[in-house]
């Protein structure tokens, strides 16, 4: 990515200050503050309607917001999704958002679209895209087997893999995952989260993951923020939040508890 405009510490790689956002008259976020360190996996948890998805949508420019959101010192608010993507934000929306008429490999090539802006041309660009394809197929071997298939013919889990793979093609600075487990079998979800962990470890990609399944998200997250009714009610290291029985009960439902019991 390009060099930071202002001085930022590694701790405030993504910094959200006083974020207000919503849909028309419905104000969902009421002054949200949090920061994510570079290379960290951050889980955003909370009940339905707490504003988790809205937070991600404001970060990637899908909806407008007030306040300030900086990535590596650059302001993200007020930018369109395509501009945010050019600044290194890769958002995998809820419901996956693959290009169903395109083949798996074409989907990934669309992910490499931003590489055009990097000044590479012709053979050099093809080499870069080919290397990125190899990299993604390395994480998701199943996508390689299906590379000539239309994305619409994939299973739900494979589509989610494809959506994440496409988002990772341009080596984003920040990966936003919205409910990646939605509608997937537990085994598939676990596999998916392991891959996200691997990507984070190997490429130091900063990840913000929104999840209903708190237990899964906390397993791969370094840090977690709990939202309720558009406000941050709790922040801390993922391990501590996982251990905190009361938090689990009040904000995260019984999933953590039953895990302790079992």
């Amino acid at each position, binding site marked *: 990515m390009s060099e930071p405009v202002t001085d930022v510490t590694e701790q405030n790689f993504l910094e959200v200050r006083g974020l207000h956002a919503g849909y028309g008259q419905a104000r969902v976020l009421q002054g949200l503050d949090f920061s994510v360190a570079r290379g960290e996996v951050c889980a955003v948890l909370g009940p339905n309607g707490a504003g988790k998805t809205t937070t991600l949508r404001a970060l*990637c420019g*899908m909806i407008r917001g007030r306040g300030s959101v900086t990535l590596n010192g650059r302001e993200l608010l007020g930018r*369109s*999704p*395509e501009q945010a*993507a*050019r600044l290194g934000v*890769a*958002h995998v*929306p809820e419901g996956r*958002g*693959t*290009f*169903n*008429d*395109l083949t798996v490999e*074409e989907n990934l*090539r*669309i*992910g490499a*679209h*931003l590489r*055009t*802006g990097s000044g590479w041309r012709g053979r050099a660009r093809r080499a870069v895209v080919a290397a990125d394809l190899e990299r993604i197929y390395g994480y998701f071997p199943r996508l390689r087997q299906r590379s000539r298939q239309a994305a619409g013919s994939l299973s739900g889990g494979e589509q989610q893999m494809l959506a994440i793979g*496409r*988002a990772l093609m*341009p080596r984003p600075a920040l990966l936003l995952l919205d409910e990646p487990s939605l509608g997937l079998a537990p085994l598939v979800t676990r596999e998916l989260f392991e891959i996200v962990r691997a990507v984070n470890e190997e490429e130091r990609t900063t990840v913000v993951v929104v999840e209903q399944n708190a237990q899964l998200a906390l397993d791969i997250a370094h840090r977690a923020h709990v939202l309720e009714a558009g406000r941050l009610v709790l922040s801390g290291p993922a391990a501590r939040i996982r251990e905190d029985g009361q938090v689990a009960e009040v904000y995260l439902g019984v999933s953590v508890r039953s895990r302790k019991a079992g």
Partner: protein
Amino acid sequence: MSAVTDLLQQAVEGLGSGAVYASLALALVLIHRFTGIINFAQGELAMLSTYVAWQLMASGMPFWLALPVTLAVSFAGGMLVERIVIRPVRGAPELTVVIVTVGLFIFVNALAGLIWSFTVKDFPQPFPDGGLDLAGVRVDWSTLGILGVVAVVMGLLYLLFQHTSAGLVMRAVACNPASARLSGIRVGRVLMLGWALAATVGALSGVLVAPVLFLEPNMMGGVLIYAFAAATLGGFDSPVGAVVGGLFVGVAETLTGAYVHVVGEDLKVGVPFVIILAVLLVRPQGLFGRAAVERV
């Protein structure tokens, strides 16, 4: 002339006019695929492009030079129309957009009348007179020429969409604009490109049909109806369908006019309506289209 040769003769003539319907249908399908919009002004934009060609030739330019200039002007014009007329109503209800394209239809029609008047103008035939004699069936050079042009356009569009990265980006936008934006694609520019391509392909249909119909502001009205029938038959999402549909409609029109005496020359304009109605009743998505599946 035997009955078979006569039938073939009629079919060949049908293919010639069908190719013109096909190219305008192709323009309709291009825009529909990218934006979900049915552009009622497509024929009028083609008519305007034809006037540009006519004006260039009137000022002394030879046809084969005037044509590329006209296509370039149409390309730019298509981009402008998207940016100025369509972009402001993006995301508006379908009916609003339809009304806007109908308004554009009326505006362009009146504009052409204002500039060039409503008197009929002669438009030169770019292809030589005469033709081939294939076992008694006469195929005019102009028919072959029109079919050839449409085949070349199809080929170029296929190459663009299947073998270039610009085409890949365009298909991605047609498929899922929201995800395309999240991948960093400037969707606005791609939509402008889609309108530009459609205007260019439409311009070809105008230039090809003008020598037959003579140039006047209402020239494309009938052609647009046939193009709608062609696109409906082929499927509004399928470029191949538009071409097959166009050829079919052309042949159906000629054969009905020649053999069904109740219909005859006067009533054959009813053929496209019958086709549209039949397709909508039997297979609403058309021959090559996919059934629209809406998630509820």
